[in-house]
């Protein structure tokens, strides 16, 4: 296993934590344990944006509906209610409809991000490349001149 080598390629400590979680047997559960690390959460948010865009941009937006339905069914979660709507809203907010995700509670947002990132980046996805891109986004948006007032939508 080249796990040690892979871990070494993540530029930040948060990146290494996220990568380690993605390499675990249950990526979503491992990612959810990072809730006490603000930097890991920040990175996870950008990783979600990167993973969602790589997966869904350029496809029929209804692909997000089908994906969420399959993901929740696989996780034995209710696929016909509020969680499904919130998950689709989050994904579509990442690919250009930010207003859809307004009002989703932070805890639910984090939970859904863990599920989606764990699925898109954890199972055979190119986790290192995705984390690298997410780290660049964090660095870019956290430059003082790029800081925004208030929180981002995702």
């Amino acid at each position, binding site marked *: 296993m080249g796990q040690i080598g892979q871990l070494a390629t993540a530029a930040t400590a948060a990146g290494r934590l996220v990568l380690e979680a993605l390499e675990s047997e249950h990526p979503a559960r491992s990612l959810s344990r990072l809730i006490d690390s603000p930097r890991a959460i920040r990175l996870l948010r950008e990783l979600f944006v990167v993973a969602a865009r790589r997966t869904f941009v350029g496809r029929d*937006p209804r692909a997000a509906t089908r994906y*969420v339905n399959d993901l929740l069914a696989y996780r034995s979660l209710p696929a*016909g209610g*509020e969680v499904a709507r919130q998950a*689709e*809203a989050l994904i579509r907010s990442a690919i250009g409809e930010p*207003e*859809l995700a307004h009002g989703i509670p932070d805890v639910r947002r984090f939970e859904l991000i863990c599920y989606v990132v764990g699925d898109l980046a954890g199972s055979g996805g190119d986790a290192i490349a995705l984390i690298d891109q997410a780290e660049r986004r964090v660095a870019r948006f956290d430059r003082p001149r790029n800081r925004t007032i208030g929180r981002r939508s995702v």
Partner: protein
Amino acid sequence: MSKPKRRPVNQGRHADPARTRRTNEGPVHPAAASAGTDHPPWTNAGDYLRAAAGDEAPARFGTPSGPIDDYARRVWHNAFGLAVRRRFKPGSPLAEISRTVATAVHVHEAAALPAIDAEMLVRAELGETVPVDELDPSVLVGVHLLLFASLADELALGDGELDDLVTEAERLAAAESVTPR
């Protein structure tokens, strides 16, 4: 040429006493009331819907105050479905649906309608399999009324067309009350 006279939004106060109700209760019996006559089963629920479409109802802030009975909910649901299917075809581009929903949510900002819930309800009316469980009843009513109003505006429905659409919704709701779904 004189403009066709629009039925006044009067909460049923000047309607046929046989079909007049004081609140949003269900009709006396719309199917029976209209049987053998040319009159549609005008009801308070329909009048309220017309008022909402004309931006003349308190529904501009979402759910009407006071109790809402099942019949009114069915009328508004049916009218919403009819308007959605008049505006969109099944399989319409999602961007087009989202744009309409976003406009409605913006126009009725005071009601704070959740855009994703409203969009799912529109898509459900078009026959898509979408998650519409666990919706708050007040959100349902708000979406049915306010999106109906926006769709009527977007379709530029004339008074006669609006009346026809509402009447059709009333007939469907009455039929459902006779034969429960």
